[in-house]
């Protein structure tokens, strides 16, 4: 198994064995149930679909049918993970945090917080204009957008202001600091993308 679904709980500080303070993010991860196993013969590729957080809320009929077919509980969230060995998984199998070890490097993906319409300075870390030397109103301006009469247009993809955030962001190689199988918690070093309560996929490398 290479992937897993979790939820961001929040951040705190814990102390390592040598007394160093480690910034950690707490993830509530799993238990996840296998809802569907995709095979190359039937689906063209091999993957495992996992469900996270059972719910009794009303969900759409097609979704309900999907869970009914699998004969599992109804889940709030579904995510699919590519696997090399689909034959090792079966529908209804429960996967827990015990799948990971302390010290594992994992890739964490989630949806970043939406920032709304932002200027080039915040969005792309432009340095802006000078504050002094007679400068009047160009502190946050992005500067030149390109050349002059040739090409006499602005190239596509030039970085400017616009909607920022609400993107899928992956943090590669996060280290697992601690695991609590009893409460389904994983503690990873450093910050994780997204708001508290946001969904995070945890994928083991290699």
């Amino acid at each position: 198994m290479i992937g897993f679904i979790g939820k961001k709980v929040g951040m705190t500080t814990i102390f390592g064995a040598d007394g160093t303070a480690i910034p950690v993010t707490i993830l509530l991860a799993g238990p996840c149930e296998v809802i569907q196993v995709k095979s190359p013969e039937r689906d063209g590729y091999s993957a495992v679909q996992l469900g996270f957080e059972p719910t009794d809320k009303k969900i759409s009929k097609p979704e309900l049918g999907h869970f009914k077919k699998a004969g599992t509980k109804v889940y709030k969230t579904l995510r699919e993970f590519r696997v090399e060995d689909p034959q090792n998984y079966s529908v209804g199998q429960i996967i827990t945090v015990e799948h990971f070890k302390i010290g594992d490097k994992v890739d964490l993906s989630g949806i970043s917080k939406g920032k709304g319409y932002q200027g080039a300075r915040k969005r792309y870390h432009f340095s802006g204009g000078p504050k002094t030397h007679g400068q009047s109103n160009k502190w946050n301006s992005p500067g030149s957008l390109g050349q002059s009469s040739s090409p006499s247009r602005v190239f596509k993809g030039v970085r400017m202001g616009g909607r920022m955030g609400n993107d899928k962001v992956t943090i590669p190689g996060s280290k697992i600091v601690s695991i609590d199988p009893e409460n389904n918690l994983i503690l990873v070093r450093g910050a994780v993308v997204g708001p508290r309560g946001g969904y995070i996929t945890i994928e083991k490398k290699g």
Partner: protein
Amino acid sequence: MTDAIIRNVEASHLKEIPVFGSGDTVKVHVRIKEGEKERIQVYQGVVISRKGGGTSESFTVRKISGGIGVERVFPLHSPNVAKIEIVKFGRVRRAKLYYLRKKIGKAARIRERRVIVKK
């Protein structure tokens, strides 16, 4: 619910701390590693602030060392802070005693608060 989870995670990293606050004179026993060896160094001074909460709570201790003011900030729950001993309780009227930095000599004194310690 999420805050409860965070508190639970932090709980195992919290130490038992004696009651002290700003104005109190304390001896902080600090673990110092020199290569392989580990020893304890005692740092004595007046607590001028306590800030933060949970595992990240810290306190600042100020002392005058050789005529020069020295301030050290300790993470309250760090394993490197082996012990906190209270020498004297001080009577102060605010939580942060940053004004002491501008006071020299007699003006930097803090009135003592008599406390009956229950055995």
